[in-house]
Protein backbone atom coordinates (compact mmCIF):
# COMPACT_ATOMS: atom_id res chain seq x y z
CA UNK A 1 0.00 0.00 0.00
CA UNK A 2 2.97 2.30 0.55
CA UNK A 3 3.54 2.44 -3.20
CA UNK A 4 0.15 4.08 -3.73
CA UNK A 5 1.10 7.10 -1.64
CA UNK A 6 4.24 7.77 -3.69
CA UNK A 7 3.79 10.33 -6.44
CA UNK A 8 4.46 9.34 -10.03
CA UNK A 9 7.29 11.87 -10.15
CA UNK A 10 9.02 10.22 -7.24
CA UNK A 11 8.40 6.78 -8.68
CA UNK A 12 10.04 7.96 -11.90
CA UNK A 13 13.05 9.18 -9.94
CA UNK A 14 13.26 5.88 -8.06
CA UNK A 15 13.08 4.09 -11.40
CA UNK A 16 16.63 5.24 -12.17
CA UNK A 17 17.84 2.72 -9.57
CA UNK A 18 15.53 -0.14 -10.51
CA UNK A 19 18.29 -2.07 -12.28
CA UNK A 20 21.14 -1.46 -9.82
CA UNK A 21 23.38 -0.21 -12.64
CA UNK A 22 24.33 3.19 -11.15
CA UNK A 23 25.58 1.54 -7.94
CA UNK A 24 27.23 -1.35 -9.71
CA UNK A 25 29.13 0.94 -12.05
CA UNK A 26 30.26 3.37 -9.36
CA UNK A 27 31.20 0.52 -7.01
CA UNK A 28 33.29 -1.15 -9.70
CA UNK A 29 35.00 2.15 -10.45
CA UNK A 30 36.00 2.46 -6.78
CA UNK A 31 37.39 -1.07 -6.75
CA UNK A 32 39.26 -0.79 -10.07
CA UNK A 33 40.88 2.58 -9.45
CA UNK A 34 41.45 1.92 -5.75
CA UNK A 35 43.18 -1.31 -6.77
CA UNK A 36 45.23 0.45 -9.45
CA UNK A 37 46.33 3.02 -6.88
CA UNK A 38 47.50 0.26 -4.55
CA UNK A 39 49.39 -1.41 -7.40
CA UNK A 40 51.00 1.94 -8.17
CA UNK A 41 52.06 2.25 -4.53
CA UNK A 42 53.64 -1.22 -4.71
CA UNK A 43 55.21 -1.15 -8.17
CA UNK A 44 55.34 2.50 -9.24
CA UNK A 45 58.56 4.50 -9.64
CA UNK A 46 60.04 5.24 -6.21
CA UNK A 47 59.51 9.03 -6.13
CA UNK A 48 56.03 8.93 -7.70
CA UNK A 49 54.55 6.29 -5.40
CA UNK A 50 53.33 8.90 -2.96
CA UNK A 51 50.93 10.16 -5.61
CA UNK A 52 48.87 6.97 -5.58
CA UNK A 53 45.77 9.00 -4.69
CA UNK A 54 46.16 10.86 -8.00
CA UNK A 55 45.45 7.59 -9.85
CA UNK A 56 42.21 7.34 -7.93
CA UNK A 57 41.22 10.93 -8.62
CA UNK A 58 42.02 10.47 -12.31
CA UNK A 59 39.61 7.53 -12.20
CA UNK A 60 36.92 9.66 -10.60
CA UNK A 61 37.33 12.34 -13.25
CA UNK A 62 37.22 9.73 -16.02
CA UNK A 63 34.17 8.12 -14.45
CA UNK A 64 32.43 11.48 -14.04
CA UNK A 65 32.91 12.29 -17.70
CA UNK A 66 31.71 8.91 -18.94
CA UNK A 67 29.16 7.88 -16.31
CA UNK A 68 25.97 9.07 -17.96
CA UNK A 69 26.99 7.81 -21.41
CA UNK A 70 27.91 4.36 -20.09
CA UNK A 71 24.74 4.15 -18.00
CA UNK A 72 22.60 5.18 -20.97
CA UNK A 73 24.35 2.56 -23.11
CA UNK A 74 23.70 -0.18 -20.54
CA UNK A 75 20.15 0.91 -19.72
CA UNK A 76 19.30 0.96 -23.44
CA UNK A 77 20.23 -2.69 -23.63
CA UNK A 78 19.05 -4.01 -20.28
CA UNK A 79 16.40 -1.74 -18.83
CA UNK A 80 14.41 0.21 -21.40
CA UNK A 81 13.46 -2.80 -23.55
CA UNK A 82 12.19 -4.56 -20.41
CA UNK A 83 10.38 -1.97 -18.35
CA UNK A 84 10.43 1.19 -20.44
CA UNK A 85 12.06 4.57 -20.32
CA UNK A 86 11.20 7.61 -18.26
CA UNK A 87 12.98 10.89 -17.72
CA UNK A 88 12.26 12.36 -14.28
CA UNK A 89 11.92 16.13 -14.13
CA UNK A 90 15.21 17.94 -13.89
CA UNK A 91 15.86 19.69 -10.61
CA UNK A 92 16.36 23.08 -12.25
CA UNK A 93 13.00 22.86 -13.93
CA UNK A 94 11.10 22.83 -10.65
CA UNK A 95 13.08 25.28 -8.54
CA UNK A 96 11.08 28.30 -9.54
CA UNK A 97 7.71 26.62 -9.46
CA UNK A 98 5.03 28.13 -7.28
CA UNK A 99 3.90 25.88 -4.48
CA UNK A 100 0.58 24.27 -5.15
CA UNK A 101 -1.63 22.73 -2.51
CA UNK A 102 -3.87 20.71 -4.79
CA UNK A 103 -3.60 17.06 -3.73
CA UNK A 104 -4.69 15.81 -7.14
CA UNK A 105 -1.63 17.32 -8.71
CA UNK A 106 1.23 15.09 -7.65
CA UNK A 107 3.99 17.65 -7.34
CA UNK A 108 7.18 16.24 -8.78
CA UNK A 109 9.87 15.76 -6.17
CA UNK A 110 12.34 18.57 -5.81
CA UNK A 111 15.88 17.18 -5.58
CA UNK A 112 14.63 13.59 -5.84
CA UNK A 113 15.98 12.87 -9.26
CA UNK A 114 18.93 11.17 -10.85
CA UNK A 115 21.37 13.86 -9.75
CA UNK A 116 20.83 13.03 -6.08
CA UNK A 117 22.96 9.89 -6.42
CA UNK A 118 25.90 12.20 -7.12
CA UNK A 119 25.21 14.33 -4.07
CA UNK A 120 24.14 11.71 -1.56
CA UNK A 121 26.32 8.73 -2.44
CA UNK A 122 29.19 9.69 -4.70
CA UNK A 123 30.15 12.94 -3.02
CA UNK A 124 30.65 11.53 0.53
CA UNK A 125 32.86 8.81 -0.93
CA UNK A 126 34.89 11.34 -2.89
CA UNK A 127 35.24 13.35 0.32
CA UNK A 128 36.78 10.33 2.06
CA UNK A 129 39.15 10.04 -0.91
CA UNK A 130 40.40 13.55 -0.13
CA UNK A 131 41.63 12.30 3.25
CA UNK A 132 43.92 10.08 1.25
CA UNK A 133 45.90 12.92 -0.32
CA UNK A 134 49.45 13.37 0.91
CA UNK A 135 48.76 16.56 2.84
CA UNK A 136 46.40 14.72 5.13
CA UNK A 137 48.31 11.49 5.43
CA UNK A 138 50.67 12.73 8.12
CA UNK A 139 47.77 13.74 10.37
CA UNK A 140 45.79 10.56 9.81
CA UNK A 141 48.77 8.29 10.27
CA UNK A 142 48.70 9.16 14.00
CA UNK A 143 45.52 7.16 14.49
CA UNK A 144 47.21 4.20 12.82
CA UNK A 145 45.09 1.15 12.31
CA UNK A 146 42.00 3.02 13.55
CA UNK A 147 41.89 5.01 10.31
CA UNK A 148 40.11 2.43 8.13
CA UNK A 149 37.49 1.41 10.75
CA UNK A 150 36.70 5.02 11.68
CA UNK A 151 36.58 6.30 8.10
CA UNK A 152 34.40 3.37 7.03
CA UNK A 153 32.07 3.89 10.00
CA UNK A 154 31.76 7.59 9.18
CA UNK A 155 31.12 6.76 5.53
CA UNK A 156 28.45 4.18 6.40
CA UNK A 157 26.69 6.64 8.70
CA UNK A 158 26.87 9.43 6.12
CA UNK A 159 25.54 7.24 3.31
CA UNK A 160 22.68 6.00 5.49
CA UNK A 161 21.75 9.43 6.83
CA UNK A 162 22.04 11.32 3.54
CA UNK A 163 20.00 8.76 1.61
CA UNK A 164 17.44 8.08 4.33
CA UNK A 165 14.75 10.25 2.75
CA UNK A 166 15.96 10.02 -0.83
CA UNK A 167 14.38 8.02 -3.62
CA UNK A 168 16.93 5.31 -2.97
CA UNK A 169 17.47 4.77 0.77
CA UNK A 170 19.91 2.19 2.13
CA UNK A 171 18.63 -0.22 4.77
CA UNK A 172 20.08 0.24 8.23
CA UNK A 173 21.44 -3.29 8.36
CA UNK A 174 23.12 -2.77 5.01
CA UNK A 175 24.91 0.32 6.34
CA UNK A 176 25.80 -1.68 9.47
CA UNK A 177 27.48 -4.34 7.32
CA UNK A 178 29.67 -1.64 5.75
CA UNK A 179 30.53 -0.21 9.16
CA UNK A 180 31.39 -3.65 10.56
CA UNK A 181 33.49 -4.51 7.52
CA UNK A 182 35.78 -1.63 8.43
CA UNK A 183 36.29 -3.03 11.92
CA UNK A 184 38.07 -6.05 10.43
CA UNK A 185 41.09 -3.84 9.91
CA UNK A 186 41.49 -3.34 13.64
CA UNK A 187 42.74 -6.91 13.73
CA UNK A 188 44.21 -7.23 10.25
CA UNK A 189 47.24 -4.99 10.23
CA UNK A 190 47.76 -3.23 6.93
CA UNK A 191 50.92 -1.16 6.30
CA UNK A 192 50.36 2.60 6.66
CA UNK A 193 50.26 3.72 3.03
CA UNK A 194 47.74 1.05 2.13
CA UNK A 195 45.25 1.97 4.86
CA UNK A 196 43.88 5.00 3.07
CA UNK A 197 42.28 3.25 0.07
CA UNK A 198 40.60 0.66 2.33
CA UNK A 199 37.36 2.57 3.09
CA UNK A 200 36.98 3.30 -0.63
CA UNK A 201 37.53 -0.33 -1.59
CA UNK A 202 35.03 -1.45 1.06
CA UNK A 203 32.49 1.11 -0.12
CA UNK A 204 33.09 -0.03 -3.71
CA UNK A 205 32.52 -3.67 -2.79
CA UNK A 206 29.43 -2.72 -0.76
CA UNK A 207 27.91 -0.68 -3.59
CA UNK A 208 28.73 -3.13 -6.38
CA UNK A 209 27.37 -6.07 -4.35
CA UNK A 210 24.07 -4.24 -3.86
CA UNK A 211 24.01 -3.17 -7.50
CA UNK A 212 24.76 -6.71 -8.74
CA UNK A 213 22.05 -8.20 -6.53
CA UNK A 214 19.52 -5.63 -7.75
CA UNK A 215 20.52 -6.20 -11.38
CA UNK A 216 20.22 -9.99 -11.18
CA UNK A 217 16.86 -9.72 -9.41
CA UNK A 218 15.66 -7.18 -11.97
CA UNK A 219 16.71 -9.29 -14.96
CA UNK A 220 15.05 -12.38 -13.48
CA UNK A 221 11.76 -10.68 -12.70
CA UNK A 222 11.61 -8.68 -15.94
CA UNK A 223 12.36 -10.91 -18.92
CA UNK A 224 12.55 -9.32 -22.36
CA UNK A 225 9.18 -9.11 -24.12
CA UNK A 226 8.88 -11.90 -26.71
CA UNK A 227 8.36 -9.45 -29.55
CA UNK A 228 9.45 -5.89 -30.09
CA UNK A 229 5.85 -4.83 -29.57
CA UNK A 230 6.56 -4.10 -25.95
CA UNK A 231 8.53 -1.07 -26.88
CA UNK A 232 6.31 0.18 -29.65
CA UNK A 233 2.96 1.90 -29.56
Amino acid at each position, binding site marked *: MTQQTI*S*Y*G*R*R*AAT*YWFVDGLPELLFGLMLIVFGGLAILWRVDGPEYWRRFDFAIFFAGIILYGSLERRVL*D*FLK*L*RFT*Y*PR*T*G*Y*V*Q*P*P*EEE*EWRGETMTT*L*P*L*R*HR*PPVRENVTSFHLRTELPIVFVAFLWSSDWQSGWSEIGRWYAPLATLALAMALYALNRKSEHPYRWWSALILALAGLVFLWVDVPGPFRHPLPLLLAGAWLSAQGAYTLVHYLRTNPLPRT*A*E*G*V*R*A
Partner: protein
Amino acid sequence: MTDQAQEIAQLDRVIHEPARLTIMLILDGVSEADFLYLQREGGFTQGNLSGHLTKLEDAGYVEIEKKFKGKVPLTLCRLTGEGKAAFAGYSQRMMGVLKGNGSAG
Protein backbone atom coordinates in the same frame (compact mmCIF):
# COMPACT_ATOMS: atom_id res chain seq x y z
CA MET B 1 -28.77 22.98 -10.94
CA THR B 2 -26.45 23.54 -7.99
CA ASP B 3 -23.07 25.25 -8.30
CA GLN B 4 -21.39 21.95 -7.64
CA ALA B 5 -23.34 20.22 -10.38
CA GLN B 6 -22.38 23.03 -12.74
CA GLU B 7 -18.73 22.66 -11.80
CA ILE B 8 -18.92 18.90 -12.37
CA ALA B 9 -20.57 19.41 -15.72
CA GLN B 10 -17.72 21.69 -16.73
CA LEU B 11 -14.99 19.16 -15.91
CA ASP B 12 -12.78 18.36 -18.88
CA ARG B 13 -14.18 15.05 -20.08
CA VAL B 14 -11.09 14.17 -22.05
CA ILE B 15 -9.12 14.09 -18.79
CA HIS B 16 -11.93 12.90 -16.53
CA GLU B 17 -11.92 9.33 -17.85
CA PRO B 18 -9.96 7.23 -15.27
CA ALA B 19 -7.42 5.77 -17.71
CA ARG B 20 -6.66 9.15 -19.26
CA LEU B 21 -6.50 10.75 -15.82
CA THR B 22 -3.88 8.15 -14.87
CA ILE B 23 -1.88 8.92 -18.00
CA MET B 24 -2.05 12.65 -17.28
CA LEU B 25 -0.98 12.08 -13.66
CA ILE B 26 2.01 10.03 -14.72
CA LEU B 27 3.10 12.46 -17.42
CA ASP B 28 2.56 15.45 -15.15
CA GLY B 29 5.17 14.04 -12.76
CA VAL B 30 7.89 13.39 -15.34
CA SER B 31 9.59 15.14 -18.22
CA GLU B 32 8.81 12.34 -20.65
CA ALA B 33 7.99 8.65 -20.57
CA ASP B 34 7.88 5.96 -23.18
CA PHE B 35 4.94 3.76 -24.11
CA LEU B 36 6.16 0.69 -22.24
CA TYR B 37 6.74 2.65 -19.02
CA LEU B 38 3.25 4.16 -19.20
CA GLN B 39 1.78 0.74 -19.91
CA ARG B 40 3.43 -0.80 -16.85
CA GLU B 41 2.82 2.12 -14.48
CA GLY B 42 -0.84 2.45 -15.40
CA GLY B 43 -1.55 -1.27 -15.78
CA PHE B 44 -2.86 -0.77 -19.31
CA THR B 45 -3.07 -3.19 -22.18
CA GLN B 46 -1.28 -2.08 -25.32
CA GLY B 47 -4.46 -1.37 -27.27
CA ASN B 48 -6.10 0.41 -24.39
CA LEU B 49 -3.17 2.73 -23.81
CA SER B 50 -2.78 3.36 -27.51
CA GLY B 51 -6.43 4.39 -27.79
CA HIS B 52 -6.33 6.74 -24.82
CA LEU B 53 -3.06 8.32 -25.93
CA THR B 54 -4.56 8.99 -29.33
CA LYS B 55 -7.49 10.80 -27.70
CA LEU B 56 -5.15 12.89 -25.56
CA GLU B 57 -3.00 13.64 -28.58
CA ASP B 58 -6.04 14.66 -30.63
CA ALA B 59 -7.03 17.02 -27.81
CA GLY B 60 -3.55 18.54 -27.96
CA TYR B 61 -2.70 17.51 -24.40
CA VAL B 62 0.00 15.00 -25.17
CA GLU B 63 2.67 14.93 -27.83
CA ILE B 64 4.00 11.61 -29.02
CA GLU B 65 7.37 11.24 -30.65
CA LYS B 66 8.72 8.03 -32.09
CA LYS B 67 12.47 7.90 -32.11
CA PHE B 68 15.42 5.61 -31.70
CA LYS B 69 17.79 5.75 -28.77
CA GLY B 70 20.72 3.83 -30.15
CA LYS B 71 19.00 0.89 -31.80
CA VAL B 72 16.09 0.77 -29.37
CA PRO B 73 12.80 2.23 -30.67
CA LEU B 74 11.04 4.40 -28.11
CA THR B 75 7.63 5.98 -28.31
CA LEU B 76 8.07 9.03 -26.12
CA CYS B 77 5.07 10.79 -24.62
CA ARG B 78 5.03 14.12 -22.84
CA LEU B 79 2.49 16.72 -21.83
CA THR B 80 2.19 19.79 -24.04
CA GLY B 81 1.85 23.26 -22.54
CA GLU B 82 -1.85 23.04 -23.31
CA GLY B 83 -1.99 19.67 -21.57
CA LYS B 84 -0.30 21.00 -18.44
CA ALA B 85 -2.68 23.95 -18.30
CA ALA B 86 -5.71 21.73 -18.88
CA PHE B 87 -4.62 19.33 -16.16
CA ALA B 88 -3.98 22.15 -13.69
CA GLY B 89 -7.43 23.55 -14.50
CA TYR B 90 -9.03 20.14 -14.10
CA SER B 91 -7.30 19.60 -10.73
CA GLN B 92 -8.41 23.01 -9.49
CA ARG B 93 -12.00 22.51 -10.57
CA MET B 94 -12.15 19.02 -9.08
CA MET B 95 -10.68 20.27 -5.82
CA GLY B 96 -13.26 23.03 -5.71
CA VAL B 97 -16.04 20.50 -6.12
CA LEU B 98 -14.62 18.17 -3.45
CA LYS B 99 -13.91 20.99 -1.01
CA GLY B 100 -17.41 22.32 -1.48
CA ASN B 101 -18.69 18.93 -0.45
CA GLY B 102 -16.34 18.74 2.54
CA SER B 103 -14.60 15.74 0.97
CA ALA B 104 -11.11 17.17 0.55
CA GLY B 105 -8.66 17.96 3.31
